[in-house]
């Protein structure tokens, strides 16, 4: 009977041996999982990759392969690399914003410590000082973060 086959062997239409490399990670109740992986990587590549790993790491590897395969199926041009690019941009934006906010805090704290001085300063001079602090913060070590972007 064929009921004991894993989803990989069922898809490949072959007998599922007791030591099948796929069966622990591609159960028969989730056929789509192997379909995606097979479409992107191919059965023999996945088998080779899993065989090269210690047994206790194969489940994680199968999960990450499935994730990347799904990303590639959904986005055939960029796959999961699109997600990496998005996160790099988010990281860069968050770092810039945090630096600006911290500079603003420094200015406000300085203002709080010297209220007498602040009271006599003309408004435009204070605004220029604040802007200079913010500009300095924005120039901090963020110049190497950008990837060249998708062209």
């Amino acid at each position, binding site marked *: 009977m064929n009921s004991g086959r894993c989803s990989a062997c069922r898809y490949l239409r072959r007998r599922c041996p007791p030591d099948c490399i796929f069966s622990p990670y591609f159960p028969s109740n989730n056929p789509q999982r192997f379909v995606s992986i097979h479409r992107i990587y191919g059965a*023999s590549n996945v088998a080779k990759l899993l065989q090269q790993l210690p047994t206790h790491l194969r489940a994680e590897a199968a999960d990450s392969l499935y994730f990347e395969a799904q990303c590639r199926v959904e986005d055939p041009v960029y796959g999961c*690399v699109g997600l990496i690019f998005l996160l*790099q941009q988010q990281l860069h934006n968050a770092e810039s914003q945090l630096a600006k906010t911290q500079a603003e805090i420094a200015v406000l704290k300085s203002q709080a410590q010297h209220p007498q001085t602040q009271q006599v300063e003309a408004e435009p001079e204070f605004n220029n000082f604040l802007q200079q602090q913010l500009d300095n913060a924005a120039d901090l070590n963020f110049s190497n973060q950008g990837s060249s972007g998708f062209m």
Partner: protein
Amino acid sequence: MGGSSPCASCKLLRRRCAKDCIFAPYFPSDDPHKFAIVHKVFGASNVSKMLQDLPVHQRADAVSSLVYEANARVRDPVYGCVGAISYLQDQVSQLQMQLAVAQTEILCIQMQQESPLQTQIPQDDKSFLLASTSNLDNISQYLNFASSGNVIQDPALKRESLWT
């Protein structure tokens, strides 16, 4: 005789490089490693099928992303690109948390300056800040299996340019 040099793919596959070879524009003969690594991870026939399914103007980007993924998988056979994704998401979450705290600190300072006689808001009370990290909802669904803390963190994947 005007035979041009076979592309890196056809050289590796030991076949004649046809004029309309689908690999030739993206795998020049002077960079054999590029195709070798893509072939190792994805397989030549899978790459060929993927490229054939794409319009020509998108194939260069597709090849670049495949090379990137293949390199990541060779460097980290367990997690591949997912290691970098998990690490970056964690970094973004931490920074957004820090940003929320900093923005609250500004509000506190401003409130103190405007009304110095009011009771100060405890600086430790930051539980209301956790609602501000909603930007990552669209990708959090992908990362269930990478949250165990065992994900390898390859610094090279975090900041490298995607297109070399």
